């Protein structure tokens, strides 16, 4: 149980960062932290106590395997997360070139 709570705390840490940080890079980092909290949740969902890696050997089948599907999902989600982060950083670098700052308060042009 404690693992799930910690996972949720990690998610909240990321959310706090997204909401309060003023630096573009820190916002991107906080989003990544949130993402990884969710990946952790996905892995935990597939985990079973004393389960083995789900590689079935017909000679000596194990009693219990962990669920492989969430692991496949996590791999896909990590790739998507990588793309998101790369895209965010590309935009942040472009913004830095225009404004010479990462501070979101000085970048804000758009309103309402």
């Amino acid at each position, binding site marked *: 149980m404690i693992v799930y709570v910690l996972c949720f705390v990690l998610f909240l840490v990321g959310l706090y960062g997204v909401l309060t940080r003023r630096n573009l890079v820190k916002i991107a980092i906080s989003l990544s932290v949130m993402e990884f909290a969710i990946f952790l*949740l996905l892995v935990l969902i597939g985990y079973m106590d004393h389960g083995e890696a789900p590689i079935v050997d017909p000679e000596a089948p194990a009693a219990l395997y962990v669920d492989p599907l969430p692991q496949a999902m996590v791999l896909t989600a990590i790739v998507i997360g990588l793309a998101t982060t790369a*895209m965010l950083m590309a935009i942040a670098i472009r913004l830095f070139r225009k404004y010479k700052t990462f501070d979101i308060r000085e970048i804000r042009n758009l309103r309402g």
Partner: protein
Amino acid sequence: MEALIPLFIAIPLISAFLIVLLGKLVRSLHLWMAPLSLLVLLIMALGMFIPAGESPLSYDMGGWGSLKGIQVGIPLILDGFSRIMLCIISLIGTIALLYSLSYVRRYTSENYFYALFCLIIAGMNGVVLSGDLFNLFVFLEVSVMASYALVAFGVGRIELEASFRYQVLGGLASMLILVAIALLYWQTKTLNIADTKEILDGNNNRSFLFFVQVLLLAGFGLKAAIVPFHAWLPDAHASAPSPVSAMLSGVLIKAAGIYALARLFFNMFALNHEMALVITVLGTVSMVMGSMLALVQWDVKRMFAYSSISQVGYVVMALGMGMLLMVRGERDTAAMLAIGGGLFHLLNHSVFKGLLFLNAGALEHRLETRDLKQMGGLGEAMPVTGTTSLVASLSISGLPPFNGFFSKFIIILAAIYGRFYLLAALAVLVSIITLGYFLKFQRFAFFNKSPGPRKESIREVPFSMASGMVILAVLCLFLSLLVLPSLRDAVFLPALEVLMRSDVTLTLSGI
């Protein structure tokens, strides 16, 4: 027919990769490859109407069938609802691409534009066809990722900032959706939407289901820009290149937001009264708020973006009313009217909002400004743009004989039949406000006699841009024909059967 289904995803995906890979070698590859693949998609999507909607078609990706009665692998499902969405996507996509052929000359590295455009189409087709929750998420990410890049395509200060904001909120939405999918998998141990439904039907853990539904509503609501989650939309849709705005406003918020919401809430969860009420209220609020905010805008594209929020509110409200009526189990005709009207408005809104953004693009192309105060008297200088935008404005404000009138009329009628008198009154009121701000747009852009600067030098836009606008304007008129009983039954009845989950024996003869 089944074998054609994966092509809806494969064709745009392959052309996106080929455009990037071979674009350096073959100079004008993107100029014919992208329109050609979109045209093929459009023909295929329209062709899907031919077998007259028997049982939904399904295709197992990679040939993984079912093992001991359990579905293994990823199914693609094409039913009445996804067929309508496929047609909308490829129709608006083709016309926006035709328009881009002249419009995108203003940007550098054009071939990336076409590649990203194909990628958006591939992602949305995937979302619409997927019968698997996680696969839906993956395709959703493909399409929104391409849209993040396209919003920033102008690489100016405003575009970059809008794209960053869009990405942060879009990323949050994706995470909420992913958490919801993870939790659903935890409970059901399956990702297939049909299997999930069967397992959830036997599940009476109400608080768990509620939590997941709220997460999904927030996630897809962010993608669909329903009102408390709408902050990113005006920036993102106003900053993107105009054909892309037409795609985003006309199609992406529907495919990624409303389609997914409707699919999951109608077909996966058992309907419940509280969520139906929440959806109806959110739809109504965004309908009213969007129109109020649009009224005070002076930037053409921002005005249209707020108007999108308002019109999408109509659709969400109609779907919510349908859910409420179905939960109460009374007045099936009214529920059918509400949902059918919502779907009709979905189709109509993509046509006229696509057209309006193309008009805005034409104005921007010639005047280099989006400020209404600097326009005026353009009706003579740009006759095609003026006429088509007038058609679109009348259509979106719900004046007969254009398509917007019929869909709004059906929604209002359904509200009265279902005894939601307040909602009916609000829908009429918002329609009047919509007429107000589109008259403002018409007056300041085309009719006002005080001409803006450089009026003499302004000419009509090139042929490929004008032809796209004319096609959409003609469609605005001809889509009203869909209220005819035979066409209506062919197009909307299969979708209604899918959404209402019952064999609808009674026809829509109540109108």
